[in-house]
């Protein structure tokens, strides 16, 4: 099968201190409960890792987390594929949109249309597409400053995001947020946070709301799931652990998705972390930790299905570590000198879009021509987004002072413009003490 990892016989030339997945066997697989695919939570709360390593040394980061059922499927004939044609085309389109959008951002930045800090997502599209395309509209996504593609995948129109990046009044935040702060209430994209680790507690709060609504406000059908995306550097931050604890304690419907691209600006993950295997930090708090190849959208999708399903059923949080890579520097201002060119070449050879294209064509889900049509359409969409953003006006001066407070004058004034406490009905109250 085209997406299995067996084609890499030797590990890439990392430093000798590497402890990437092929050195230590990944023996803990929370989803391989041995019985049913949809295992019960009791089985997932291990304290000790399983001993038997079912891991072949020459597999580089094979998907350990996919259940037996799916693995058997892979070994059978092509009749049982992981995706249908529609799903395949949807995934392809989404990833190509993410890539084209980010490439256009780089172009626009160097032409001076975009400014400030811009962090691009090239190379990591499999993670966002694999997860976000499984969500409903009411589910929430919270991200970091590398959030353009999360917003676009979730459904925010590309033109709105591009205008926001240009700082125009038609942007999704009317030009007030910028590259790092993409918010959309309609699509439940809650940002966009510049401080790493800041989004994780907010995501946990959104998951908390879902549970609160179901249990306290008695909205029976509220099963919204929250996805929190963050990187490997964040996994050393205190807030991350605080939220793993509380999410597991209160069984919140959240999935913590780690986009482990090995580098936090110029700090290698291996230099910064005592135990670089992030998925292991889940079981320490009582939630399952899963490691998956983040350059392969189909593998990510399989893991995502299970994790999101768990959250939706009320079984609690999951920590998913996606091993991925960013093809560009940390931001457009980053000279990116510290990364080994051989490492970059290695991952460039594992481009998720190329891999999916190969899979689709080899399994005859669609023709090359159809894929080319998609690429062309996406190019047009992105071009149109740029034209729209260019043509949009800058925010008016009066917008500077707007939206500081939800109540316009900030004096506790109600929507009718009067002081709330002067409204005679206000003091009637509904309180029964």
């Amino acid at each position, binding site marked *: 099968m085209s997406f299995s990892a067996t084609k890499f016989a030797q590990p890439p030339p990392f430093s000798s201190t590497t402890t990437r997945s092929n050195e230590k066997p990944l023996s803990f697989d929370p989803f391989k409960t041995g019985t049913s695919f949809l295992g019960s939570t009791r089985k997932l709360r291990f304290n000790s890792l399983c001993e038997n390593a079912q891991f072949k040394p020459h597999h580089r980061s094979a998907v350990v987390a996919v259940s037996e059922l799916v693995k058997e499927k892979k070994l059978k004939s092509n009749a049982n594929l992981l995706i249908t044609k529609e799903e395949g085309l949807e995934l392809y389109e989404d990833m190509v949109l993410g890539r084209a959008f980010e490439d256009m951002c780089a172009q626009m930045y160097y032409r001076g249309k975009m400014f400030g800090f811009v962090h691009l997502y090239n190379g990591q599209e499999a993670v966002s597409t694999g997860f976000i395309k499984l969500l409903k509209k009411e589910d929430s996504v919270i991200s970091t400053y590398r959030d353009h593609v999360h917003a676009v995948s979730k459904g925010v129109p590309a033109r709105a995001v591009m205008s926001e990046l240009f700082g125009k009044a038609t942007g999704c935040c009317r030009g007030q947020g910028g590259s790092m*702060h993409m918010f959309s209430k309609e699509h439940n994209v*809650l940002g966009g946070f510049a401080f790493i680790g800041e989004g994780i*507690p907010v995501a*946990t709060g959104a998951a908390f709301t879902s549970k609160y609504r179901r249990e306290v406000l008695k909205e029976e059908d509220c099963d919204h799931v929250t996805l929190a995306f963050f990187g490997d550097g964040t996994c050393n931050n205190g807030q991350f652990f605080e939220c793993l604890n509380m999410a597991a304690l209160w069984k919140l419907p959240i999935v913590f998705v780690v986009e482990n691209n090995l580098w936090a600006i110029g700090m290698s993950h291996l230099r910064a972390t005592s135990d670089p295997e992030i998925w292991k930090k889940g079981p320490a708090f009582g939630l399952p930790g899963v490691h998956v190849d983040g350059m392969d959208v189909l593998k990510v999708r399989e893991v995502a299905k299970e994790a999101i399903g768990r959250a939706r059923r009320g079984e609690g949080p999951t920590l998913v570590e996606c091993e991925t890579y960013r093809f560009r520097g940390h931001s457009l201002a980053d000279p990116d000198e510290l990364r080994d060119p051989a490492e970059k070449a290695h991952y460039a050879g594992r481009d998720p879009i190329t891999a999916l294209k190969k899979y689709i064509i080899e399994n005859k889900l669609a023709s090359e021509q159809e894929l080319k049509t998609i690429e062309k359409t996406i190019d047009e969409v992105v071009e149109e987004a740029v034209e729209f953003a260019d043509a949009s006006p800058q925010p008016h001066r009066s917008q500077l002072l707007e939206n500081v407070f939800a109540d316009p004058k*900030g004096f506790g004034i109600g929507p009718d413009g009067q002081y709330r406490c002067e409204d005679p009905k206000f003091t009637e109250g*509904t309180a029964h003490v």
Partner: protein
Amino acid sequence: MWGTIRLNVCTGRSPARGLLSGLSAFRGYSSSGKEMTVRDALNSALDEEMSADPKVFLMGEEVGEYQGAYKISKGLLEKYGPERVIDTPITEAGFTGIGVGAAYYGLKPVVEFMTFNFSMQAIDHIINSAAKSNYMSAGQLSVPIVFRGPNGAAAGVGAQHSHCYAAWYASCPGLKVLSPYSSEDARGLLKAAIRDPDPVVFLENELFRSQFQQEALDSSFCLPIGKAKIEREGKDVTITAFSKMVGYALKAAENLAKEGISAEVINLRSIRPLDRSTINASVRKTNRLVTVEEGFPQHGVGAEICTSVIEDSFGYLDAPVERIAGADVPMPYAANLERLAVPQIEDIVRAAKRACYRSVPLAAAA
């Protein structure tokens, strides 16, 4: 020189009750007097708001089974259950962020910090995710959250537990900062804060827990945010204060009255938005200003009031603005040093006299 009068915060009623002016327009003010401690006032406000709106919930350390670290949330766990009165682990950053995330979706969390000193572990969420979100998202996400807890110096708790955060939070746009003095303030402002659609930092004061004050109460009483209250009218000098210092200022005003100086005491109530119009109107009437606060002097609330008055009413000032603040040192532990580090009534009296050119006994009256 600093005097030996030690304020006993457990005695006495506020002397200026009878001189309430009708400045703030609170209609729900019935005249049936009732005494209530500030602690009970806060508890009743929380109780009423939680019963009126199921989206209000309380979260913090020891708020549930311990009945509140300072007993503010007494009885609430029994009434509303553990889903609405949530005991959290000791993770300020984590649970404050959770509160903000819940507020993004329209729930109304009341996040309690055991003291505001611990809010420093969560200040990233208070400022960056709560205060700035409405602006960054251009109005899409409002954050109807209340952060409350005791603020400022207590008795003998040392430097890390005695910091006053009024100036810190009040400098940030997007936050509303309230600081009640009396039980009436506490009830009215907390209810207003919970009903408000924006993030509110509610700075209570530990030492008020046992102060008895006569209050007029209505079952759904609410005070407007952004309006100061003139606790005592006067014509010679204006003294502004908030929280515990209002009590000191009122006592100082009494002492000054004996010497023929009529002081007007303003209880700020709301640090952000600051009620500049009330302060300026008062200064235009009296022509002298003394600002009193417990926190550190540099970049403090008094500095902001002074600038506001200079910008708007410079021509009306007859004397330089006097600023009384805590000593510019971390709070010492020894009882006598602690007394020296916090403003006392004599300091306020002395400052008022300086403003009135009365510090030299034989000088002519202003």
